[in-house]
């Protein structure tokens, strides 16, 4: 079997100024083509205004076995969330 086009992960920023979001993957011979392919595959319904592509092999990911140590410590830090702080209604919108 001949060599396969590498796999790319595609991130698209939608119309409303949100962050780029992972939308899926595709194959392409290089990054320039991957961006064009992403445009043709993932924005057919007017979904985006900006595209990032990253070759899948370059993505470093946290390991699922470390899920506990990685994410559980943040679970009890409720003080990072706005609802932790009771503010009287009279103060108005905050």
């Amino acid at each position, binding site marked *: 079997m001949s060599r396969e086009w590498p796999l790319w992960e595609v991130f698209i920023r939608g119309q409303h100024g949100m962050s780029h979001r992972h939308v899926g*993957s595709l194959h392409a011979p*290089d990054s320039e083509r991957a961006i064009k392919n992403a445009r043709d595959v993932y924005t057919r319904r007017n979904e985006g205004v900006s595209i990032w592509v990253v070759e899948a092999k370059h993505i470093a990911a946290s390991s699922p076995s470390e899920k506990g140590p990685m994410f559980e410590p943040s679970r009890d830090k409720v003080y990072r969330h706005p609802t932790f702080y009771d503010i009287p209604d009279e103060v108005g919108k905050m």
Partner: protein
Amino acid sequence: MYAQMIKSEATQEDTEKLAAFQARIDAGQKIEPKDWMPEGYRKTLIRQIGQHAHSEIVGQLPEGNWITRAPSLERKANLLAKVQDEAGHGLYLYCAAETLGVSRDELTEMLLDGRMKYSSIFNYPTLTWADMGAVGWLVDGAAIMNQVPLQRTSYGPYARAMVRICKEESFHQRQGYHLLMHMMKGTKEQRRMCQDAMNRMWYPALMMFGPSDKDSVHSEQSMRWKIKMNTNDELRQKFVDETVPQAKYLGLEIPDENLRWNDERGHYDFSEPDWSEFFDVIKGNGPCNVDRIAARQKAWDDGAWVREAMLAHADKKAARRAAGELKNVA
């Protein structure tokens, strides 16, 4: 369905790990690519997602058959967009399968050499323009029955692909029905085409859900793993119940003299398709099996030089860039 007769793999692994895995699924958690999973789960999923992807790609052919003959500019664009969506859906699904450690090229080779299957429905021919309506209405309609619950399947990448597919596919069934509605208001020949399509497509559409659960040995494990969400018979019944009134509205007759409402069950009674025909089609003896695979093989072979050349050019470009950078440093 698009994934029919998927054999679940037996699993022989650490019972403690297995129990924890099952507990996660029961709790509605998603399994992600790097998570531990039983080998049987992985293999069954590859087979199922792969077959689903192949069905999308082979499924381009019967409809693609009419793109160059579409009777108006509007219909031509609609059909083209729909067949293109199927290529997209195949692409999303292959990518989901790739997270399980198999490459798209490997999956393609397995389709071409017959190790992997695709849905039996695509081995039937599209003979008139009305088939473009019947395929959209009945075939996509049947597919949606299965795909909507699969958005909740346990494997994360598969579920996410299904969410995207369901969102895009919502127009397909309506496009088919719309086309038939228009033709049924047309000439006698147009109405004849519609009924003819109905006569040919009805039972193959029922077969899409796979054989009865009584004969389906693999369902149980897959349902426990939440990679199969409903039984074949449940989905088939739901499809019949929804389709009968739609056919009536069109003025089309369903080719089944046993079809009638059963008050007691609260469902329609209907005739089973001829399962010997189904098994013939699965074995390769459907009306179009040979042509479909030949078409895919030709596209694959004809495209080889293009895929290689684009990669070779990318390599050369990278090498030139690197050489240029070296020169700048020196």
